[in-house]
């Protein structure tokens, strides 16, 4: 209590110093005066009285010092004093301060930005209740990887599990036409088991979530909205509960609004999933996602063991559909971050290197400055400042510098983070918002103090370690020639900077070339003038083949007749995205590898191949008659299945036709013409009528996979009538979008036009990860290159300044300008060569780390490394240009008179 009170009083004493000093002087003066009066009274003459009183008072200046020390907190006072002094010093050399602050701001800002991503994605727990107990559930198949659930499998897991307290199933995010009076807009819909939100442990901010019985038909027209949809469709009104939102032309009642931060699987509106046998589809059709919540004493491993057993039993029970179907359990946190962990840490490593180079540069600047300040420091030492005191003062100055840099850098990071927040399709999985929060701020403060000490310590120790007598005696010239240690240290810093920037440049170069390779990887189609968007027909309004066909035929016709359109087509899958696939059986084929080969399926109109420039190698295209017949046949198959869900095979007269790609032809019918051959899939027999070129499906990185094309009319039978339109034009493809939209509206105003993009944009979308990585790493590398160049420049300039007298003497003695040139260039060359050597060694031995991010080249690609070396050598030549020019222009007379 006493100490706290005293501390507060002393803390208060830090302020108002001048007034308090004045009071102290008053008090001392009145004390002295009373003493003098007393002395006079006791018989001394005034002069004597004053002299005795002063002796009695003791050393006045030390009394003042004692008093001040008692008044405030000496540590803080020194700090404040050092800060004031440091700030004044920095203001005095604005050029130096600006360069140092900008350098540090770039370094610290970049680190803050990347850390804010890492914080949101990797460090902060998922924003769900007891998030460490949440798991993602997957099925596995013969082919490696994880696969969505078949509905009946999920129901069996849900019933039998004892390690999971609860599970919840939901669909992939899918498009839906949404409107609440007004034009239809496309939204992302997820159908979910009614317990989804309670399994996640998230409460709505308005209203409620689903009741258990709301999965039943008749009660299932209720919808939970995300915050953004609430704002967009209902202006954030509180009375939204009970309002209607039309989804695919059917009215849904709004029952709840999720919190603003809530993000789940891209969903914007959530409706209850039909859990009946019909709604869950047959076994063998894998299309659902599921999460679970572990019971308290269970672990991911124990759940994994249990679910594997359950899957094994199902495999025995249903050998047809569940052959080789297993189980995988992944913690939800890992599911969200798994793929990105390594890439994020590579980025953090890169950005830390940027900061290191920034520090080296500022240390270099400080060393040059400290050399110039040796006399000031020597003077302070002579006046009694201890070495620790001087180091402390210099360190305070450098931390002040780094904090200033951090403040500026924080501004930059803030800007970056707001960019990231607004980027709709940023390829970073996140349940947490990316933001500058307390953790991030703390990180920035720690980094900036650490950095301040890091770059300030060496110069401070160096500057305080001096021979007082020598420094004060010395002439300006001598002050400018610091110890050999200083030279070594600064040269070492520059070598390190060049090495680090080479490493980063190599990494960026590799990514850039990979990116280039990816951009130019053969995709198998020509889409430069193609625009695409999708349309989804609501089930209720378009419930049979006839109505659906009529709609799409009329739409396609209308589009064909629009000016500028060359050709247009409809497909169920887009190149590079794809997604629907299955296994085929070829009679007589015994190769077990073929049974694990996934075949991609795409339902297209005949013009699809011409629209995307996919060549035919043999056979023929679908004819209009094929389209009619196939649609009708599929309708009959559908009816047969309705009568008998366990139908094993479809009658021969309903067999289908297919066009396959070259990979499929080569895989299943090597060295034969597959046209006329047949294969089986899901009870149907398919006859091949043509072979076309390969189109990349999934990531550009992947090898083309086997793909089969079927007449589009087949896809119009079944629960969902959905299509991607592809339109090839002979001018700007996006220009026809407004008229396409108008066309759609005249056909049916309740339909929205989904996701309009040009095909080049589809390609770019499939490379978002690569784009971001290349962009970030490239800018970090560019930054370090710039910093390294500045570092080399400052060291060389300093060298020339320091040796100008020597150069002058040499020239006076007959040395040629070329000799001077050689001298400076030798220095530049040595530093650059050492840095490049060291950097090459580091980059080559660390190359393994980014091998997985490379495409079409190895991580030790000689061309990239050669290019980077040439670039660095070129830049350092450029950085030496000005110092060399200065050296060559040294006038011997001036240089000698300098003394």
């Amino acid at each position: 209590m006493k100490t706290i009170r005293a501390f507060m009083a002393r803390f208060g004493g830090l302020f108002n110093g001048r007034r308090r000093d004045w009071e102290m002087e008053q008090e001392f003066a009145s004390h002295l005066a009373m003493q003098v009066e007393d002395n006079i009274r006791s018989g001394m003459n005034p002069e004597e009285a004053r002299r005795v009183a002063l002796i009695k008072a003791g050393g006045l200046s030390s009394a003042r010092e004692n008093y001040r020390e008692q008044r405030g907190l000496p540590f803080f006072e020194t700090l404040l004093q050092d800060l004031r002094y440091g700030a004044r010093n920095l203001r005095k050399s604005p050029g130096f301060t600006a360069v140092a602050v900008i350098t540090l701001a770039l370094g610290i800002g970049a680190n803050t930005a990347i850390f804010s991503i890492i914080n949101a994605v990797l460090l902060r727990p998922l924003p769900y209740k007891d998030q460490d107990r949440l798991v993602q559930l997957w099925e596995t198949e013969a082919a490696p990887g994880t696969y969505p659930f078949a509905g009946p499998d999920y129901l069996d897991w849900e019933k039998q599990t004892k390690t999971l307290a609860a599970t919840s199933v939901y669909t992939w995010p899918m498009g839906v036409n949404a409107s609440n009076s007004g034009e239809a807009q496309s939204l992302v819909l997820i159908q979910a088991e009614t317990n989804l939100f309670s399994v996640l442990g998230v409460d709505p901010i308005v209203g409620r979530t689903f009741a258990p019985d709301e999965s039943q038909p008749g009660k299932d027209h209720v919808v939970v909205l995300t915050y953004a949809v609430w704002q967009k469709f209902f202006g954030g009104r509180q009375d939204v509960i009970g309002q209607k939102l039309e989804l695919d032309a059917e009215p849904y009642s709004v029952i709840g609004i999720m919190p603003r931060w809530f993000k789940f699987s891209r969903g914007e509106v959530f409706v209850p999933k039909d859990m009946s046998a019909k709604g869950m589809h047959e076994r063998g059709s894998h299309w659902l996602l599921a999460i679970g919540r572990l019971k308290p004493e269970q672990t991911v491993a124990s759940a994994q063991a249990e679910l594997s057993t359950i899957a094994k039993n199902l495999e025995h029970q249903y050998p047809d559909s569940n052959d080789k179907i297993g189980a995988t359990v992944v913690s939800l946190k890992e599911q969200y971050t798994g793929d990105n962990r390594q890439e994020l840490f590579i980025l953090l490593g890169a950005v830390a290197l940027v900061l290191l180079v920034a520090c080296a540069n500022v240390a270099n600047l400080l060393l040059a400055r400290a050399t110039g300040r040796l006399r000031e420091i020597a003077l302070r030492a002579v006046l009694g400042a201890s070495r620790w005191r001087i180091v402390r003062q210099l360190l305070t100055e450098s931390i002040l510098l780094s904090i200033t840099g951090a403040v500026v850098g924080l501004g930059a990071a803030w800007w970056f983070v707001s960019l990231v927040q607004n980027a709709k399709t940023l390829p970073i999985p996140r349940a947490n918002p990316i933001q500058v929060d307390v953790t991030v701020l703390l990180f920035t403060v720690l980094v900036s103090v650490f950095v301040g000490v890091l770059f300030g310590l060496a110069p401070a120790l160096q500057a305080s370690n001096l021979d007082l007598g020598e420094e004060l005696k010395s002439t300006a010239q001598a002050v400018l020639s610091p110890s050999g240690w200083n030279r070594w240290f600064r040269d070492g810093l520059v070598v390190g900077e060049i090495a680090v920037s080479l490493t980063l440049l190599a990494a960026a170069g590799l990514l850039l070339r990979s990116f280039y390779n990816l951009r130019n990887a053969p995709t198998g189609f020509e889409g430069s003038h193609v625009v695409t968007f999708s349309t989804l027909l609501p089930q209720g309004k378009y419930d049979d083949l006839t109505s659906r066909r009529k709609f799409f035929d009329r739409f396609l016709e209308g589009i064909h007749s629009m000016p500028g359109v060359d050709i247009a087509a409809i497909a169920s899958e887009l190149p590079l995205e794809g997604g629907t696939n299955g296994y085929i059986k070829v009679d007589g084929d015994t190769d077990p590898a073929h049974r694990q080969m996934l075949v991609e399926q795409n339902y297209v109109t005949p013009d699809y191949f011409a629209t995307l420039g996919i060549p035919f190698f043999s056979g023929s295209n679908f004819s209009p008659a094929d389209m009619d017949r196939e649609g009708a046949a599929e309708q009959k198959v559908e009816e047969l299945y309705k009568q008998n869900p366990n139908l094993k095979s479809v009658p021969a007269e309903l067999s289908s036709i297919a066009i396959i790609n070259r990979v499929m032809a080569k895989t299943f019918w090597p060295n034969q013409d597959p046209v006329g051959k047949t294969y089986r899939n899901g009870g149907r027999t398919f006859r091949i009528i043509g072979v076309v070129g390969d189109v990349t499906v999934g990531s550009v990185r992947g090898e083309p996979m086997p793909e089969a094309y079927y007449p589009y009319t087949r896809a119009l039978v079944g629960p969902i009538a959905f299509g991607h339109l592809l339109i090839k034009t002979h001018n700007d493809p996006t220009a026809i979008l407004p008229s396409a939209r108008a066309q759609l509206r005249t056909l049916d105003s309740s339909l929205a036009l989904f996701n309009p993009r040009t095909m080049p944009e589809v390609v770019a979308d499939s490379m978002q990860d690569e784009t971001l990585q290349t962009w970030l790493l490239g800018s970090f590398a560019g930054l370090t290159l710039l910093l390294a160049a500045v570092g080399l420049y400052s060291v060389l300039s300093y060298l020339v300044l320091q040796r100008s007298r020597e150069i002058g003497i040499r020239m006076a003695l007959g040395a040629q300008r070329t000799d001077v040139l050689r001298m400076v260039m030798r220095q530049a060359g040595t530093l650059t060569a050492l840095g490049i050597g060291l950097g090459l060694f580091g980059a080559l031995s660390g190359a393994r780390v980014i091998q997985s991010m490379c495409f079409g080249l190895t991580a030790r690609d000689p061309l990239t490394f050669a290019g980077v070396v040439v670039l660095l050598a070129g830049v350092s030549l450029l950085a030496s240009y000005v110092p060399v020019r200065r050296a060559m222009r040294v006038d011997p007379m001036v240089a000698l008179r300098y003394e």
Partner: protein
Amino acid sequence: MGDKSEVWQGTLALMVLKTLESMGPQHGYGIARRIEQISGDQLSLNYGTLYPALLKLEQEGFITSEWGLSENNRRARFYRLTRTGRAQLKKEAREWEQATNILARFLSPEEQG
């Protein structure tokens, strides 16, 4: 500091508190005079010792100060004992008495016999 003894902080604080108790509000010079007189001029207080001690007592809340006029109409800062200061004085005086008693017994010839 000549032949006169130096005072150390702990005891000086006690002397200041006692002085203020017996004399009432007093300025720095008066406190110093009083302490020197009572010590029979064996103690001498310079500014560097006295004023930091007064400031410390004030920060701890045992005394307060305000500017006033001295007997000779001179502006001076007067120090006054607070209630907690009075309690502190009692406590410290008791402790000091105990300590000196123990030491006295320790040093007296009878105890050794």
